[in-house]
């Protein structure tokens, strides 16, 4: 295969993953009791904090002050999203313990 056809093959595969992930996302939460809606929203909110990876990749290759500054902001934002998100979800969920009488 040529480089171009390899690249477009890779892009199709990535689309494939994307479409399957949509259905998995629908499927895994279809039976959530409403009492867990807030923790679930908070937990998924933490998962999209993976954008921190994007910020790190951009900042790692930054070569101008502008890119460096904005990349730094992206890393701070993403880091707050991911760490704060998981911590706040854990704080909510640790209260969902069944009480012994």
């Amino acid at each position, binding site marked *: 295969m040529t480089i171009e056809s390899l690249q477009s093959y890779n892009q199709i595969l990535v689309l494939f993953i*994307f479409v399957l992930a949509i259905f998995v996302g629908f499927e895994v939460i279809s039976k959530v009791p409403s009492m867990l809606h807030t923790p679930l929203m908070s937990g998924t909110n933490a998962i999209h904090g993976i954008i921190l990876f994007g910020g790190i990749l951009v*900042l790692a290759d930054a070569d101008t002050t502008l890119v460096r500054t904005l990349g730094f902001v992206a890393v701070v934002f993403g880091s707050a999203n991911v760490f704060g998100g998981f911590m706040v979800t854990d704080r909510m969920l640790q209260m969902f313990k*069944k009480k012994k009488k």
Partner: protein
Amino acid sequence: MSSTIALILIGVSVLFILGIKFLSSPKTARAGNLVAAAGMLVGLLVLAKPEGGNIWAQGWTFNYTLIVIGTVIGLVIGALGAYSVKMTSMPQMVALFNGLGGGAAALVASLEFLKGAQPQQVAGMDLPVLHDVGAAITIPMLFATLIGSLSFSGSIIAYLKLEGKFEKPHTFPGQNILNGLILLVIIGLCGWLTFHATGHNAIVAFIVMFSLALFFGIAMVMPIGGADMPVVISLLNSFTGLAVAADGFAINNNAMIVAGTLVGSSGTLLTLLMCKAMNRPVTNVLFGAFGSSGGAGAAAAGVVGTVKPIQADEVALLLAYAQRVVVVPGYGMAVAQAQHSVRELTEELGKRGVEVQFAIHPVAGRMPGHMNVLLAEANVPYDQLIEMEQINPSMDRVDVCLVIGANDVVNPAAREEKTSPIYGMPIIDADRCKTCIVMKRSMAAGFAGIENHLFYKDNTRMLFGDAKASLNALVAAVKAS
């Protein structure tokens, strides 16, 4: 990307899926959150550059120092926010974290988009110009910029609204048309950029698009009333997820694609579930400008009967000699920080053999499940918390229904008054029990700005005052009786 890293990323994706799966059951929820966090940590350790090679194995530069500093600052901000926020302000915190994620997604996409820009002589000036990278990269980057910045500004407005700043809907005639036009311009710019992502004009167009998207996020959320913020936050949460997935396309990171897409689709489903709980189509929430069209005045006309106040001692007697008591908590309970007093009262009643349950409306409070979190914090066992559908059929066998700071979710106008803006919304049938006690600070209307018919029913008594003070009085009176 080496094949080892690719294989590890499959494992990371599985951890995310299992994490969300575990989050959907009370027994495994906490483990689920930790599983997802573990996935995140592994993903971070094996993070690879788009052209391959672990990012931590490259030579250390000043940029890496910045990465570490930025990550630590974010961690401190996140930890401070997560551990200092009151349980009542949880929705605001989620909105804020979501906004930060959206902002990061927009920044990453724009920096990727503008990466190739080089200064060049254009019309006698040194201007940055872009070189074409192909639509397959341009489209996801434009998408991530648009959705991410919209999610950023929208979340900030949602946060401010939940904090009580301009929580009423802000509307003016032709607003939906104006918003539609802005959106059309944004889409037009994106379409043009997809095929003309070269030269200096592209950079100008991109910056205009970015600013318009930020503005659109504000314009989209401003007309929506504070009561609908949970739906908006959930929607923006799924938006951020999609923006992150698009970023994953652009920088070729499969873990980001899977994580972002999972959040995007599960968030969309969650948004629809919430709208279903309120019996309103999502379009009505976003474009309906709830409660702005004289709904309060129209609904008040249907009110019959008078408001009958009651004293705490009398309520205590009713409670102490009841067989079955149902508590309907609402945001007012959260505001008064009364959840611990509620638990004390229900424990006291439980000792006397009274069967106590909590009736939880799916959208009570400012977020679905908000009441569950608050009551769990106050050590109320979660098997006492009953969902609306389960408790409604037996409401007429309830002796005393104690409505604490809930309003719209127990308003019978939703069943009876066809002209009411909340007509058709499922409610907890508090009016069908033998005696309904409504604890309230004053006669002010609820968050939706609608008069509550329940207050005027023959079997309703109003216990005015601060919920916490009233509950403490009740606890003392029940103990004494």
